[in-house]
């Protein structure tokens, strides 16, 4: 099967759905948009996140994951935006040849731009080739497996990432175990502690390597405290026992170097070890396309338009950087969808050859430092930015009564007081176009944590 579209969106989870809806909203004909989803249903991982707490920002109400996903699925269905299910993208490549888009007015004008070829497959259409002017990367992330954590011990059945267990319990109605130890206090791990408890399992302990939890406060309160499940900070699993099925794990305290302290070992008998030790953006396709990556986020480096360093390739959601709340994913993806729409529509309206001449307009770079681990975006073209620009980031430690300071070319521009900042929660600052335009010759913006404010 071969098809030409203007925007192809890789991934039909919350990011892909919001991006598609936004692109349609901006005026891209729906027939020129295509969502490619690997699962048998739109909605992505939200379908198995049956707990509540989604959508407080977006809809001002507390929804469960499937309900939140359905809101966006409804948008896509209402607009009749085409999508492919059970379809896996195996490759994205760029071509210097003219963009195809046969019947479109813009096609000829876009001749200089080149298009991207997306190769996919499914059991209905077989091998599929899609050519598109713009690609929105919205593939999400995966969980860090046991192997990547170098946990010593046996390799029995009963070791699952929290997300795998979540799928078994919530979608398949199966119990992966009855006596559970959880390593890592990421949100999925906390949620699964409660979920397994409600289904009759005994969750004995949650061990967290770091001296703070990577999960949201509300999850610690409602998923652990409510059920009296202990959370052991600065602890890790040092041994897994059981040849066939997990029989128990040994947990030890770790020092400031995160190495186990001899003599602190404690044995827990259990049949299941769940891992919630971090999420990794799934950027194998982006790598193949040659997109420049940020080693901190493991996601693409993007500019104000959420466009990667490959023109016409945008990224949003957990493939860009791991989010704490889906509301922010939707917001970011809406922006990415709108930017991709502008990218493909610009030539038609003749509004801006700017995307190509953009090189002349040197972007302002953004540097994360002093406790700020990264920023999204990493650069801003002032002339292309919207009236306001959100800059999202995470901090590397827990800070109390500190502030976020933004410097323009080394001079303090503004500070925001923060009562508490933690690595588990995403932070943001909003800059205006007015501010940036006023700072003539601005080259670099620095974002840092200032302590003791």
């Amino acid at each position, binding site marked *: 099967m071969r098809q030409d579209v203007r925007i192809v969106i890789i991934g039909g989870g919350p990011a892909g759905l919001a991006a598609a809806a936004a692109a349609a909203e901006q005026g891209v004909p729906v027939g020129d948009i295509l969502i490619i989803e690997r699962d048998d249903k739109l909605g992505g991982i939200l*379908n198995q996140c*049956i*707990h*509540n707490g989604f959508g*407080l920002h977006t809809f001002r109400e*507390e929804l*469960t994951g*499937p*309900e939140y996903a*359905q809101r966006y699925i409804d948008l896509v269905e209402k607009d009749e935006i085409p999508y492919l299910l059970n379809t896996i993208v195996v490759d994205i490549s760029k071509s210097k040849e003219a963009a195809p888009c046969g019947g479109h007015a813009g096609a000829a004008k876009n001749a200089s731009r080149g298009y991207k070829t997306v190769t996919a497959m499914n059991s209905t259409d077989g091998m599929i080739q899609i050519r598109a002017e713009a690609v929105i990367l919205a593939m999400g992330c995966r969980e860090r497996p046991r192997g990547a954590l170098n946990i010593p011990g046996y390799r029995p059945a009963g070791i699952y990432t929290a997300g795998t267990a979540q799928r078994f*319990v*919530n*979608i*398949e*109605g199966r119990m992966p175990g009855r006596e559970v130890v959880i390593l890592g206090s990421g949100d999925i791990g906390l949620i699964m502690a409660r*979920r397994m408890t*409600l*289904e009759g399992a005994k969750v004995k302990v949650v061990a967290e390597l770091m001296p703070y939890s990577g999960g*949201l*406060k*509300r999850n*610690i*309160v*409602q998923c652990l405290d*409510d059920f009296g499940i202990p959370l052991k900070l600065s602890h890790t699993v040092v041994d897994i026992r059981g040849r066939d099925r997990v029989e128990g794990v040994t947990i030890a305290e770790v020092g400031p170097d995160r190495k186990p302290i001899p003599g602190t070992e404690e044995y827990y008998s259990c049949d299941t070890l769940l891992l919630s030790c971090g999420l990794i953006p799934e950027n194998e396709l982006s790598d193949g396309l040659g997109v420049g990556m940020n080693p901190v986020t493991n996601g693409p480096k993007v500019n104000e338009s959420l466009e990667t360093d490959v023109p016409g390739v945008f990224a949003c959601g957990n493939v860009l950087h791991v989010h*704490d*709340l889906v509301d922010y994913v939707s917001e970011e993806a809406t922006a990415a969808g709108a930017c991709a729409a502008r990218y493909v529509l610009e030539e038609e309206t003749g509004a801006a050859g700017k995307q190509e001449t953009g090189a002349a307009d040197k972007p302002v770079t953004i540097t994360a430092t002093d406790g700020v681990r990264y920023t999204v975006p990493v650069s801003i073209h002032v002339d292309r930015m919207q009236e306001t620009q959100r800059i999202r980031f995470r901090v590397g430690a827990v800070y109390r009564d500190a502030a976020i300071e933004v410097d323009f070319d080394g001079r303090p521009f503004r500070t925001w007081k923060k*009562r*508490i900042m933690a690595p588990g*929660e995403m932070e943001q600052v909003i800059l205006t176009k007015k501010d940036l335009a006023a700072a003539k010759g601005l080259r670099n913006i620095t974002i840092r944590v200032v302590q003791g404010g």
Partner: protein
Amino acid sequence: MSEEKRNLTCIRCPMGCQITVTLESGEVRAVEGNSCPRGDEYARNEVTHPVRTVTSTVRVRKGSLPVVSVKTQTDIPKDRIFDVMRDINSVTVTAPVHIGDVLMENIAGTGVALVATRDVPAA
């Protein structure tokens, strides 16, 4: 006069404000540390009559999936969570199930309905 201080983490939003509630003979005297009125409300409720939304799944017969995700339509008293789960575990519904369908009217006598949070078409 017995004065008691209780420390809570507010969960009304991701801010996670650390709130201290001062109780005198079981009466709330002061709420500190919250940054919005919702925090105050949360803290007062949490120390007097804490509530939770329960989410789980209900067995489905003849569906494309064996279970459908559900939630209590509104919060239920926190100390009734396991009663609610017992009721949830006892229900079996027959596909198709639609998002928003009420699967039980008055779960565990709480007066709260149990609703489906997704579609499960017939197999």
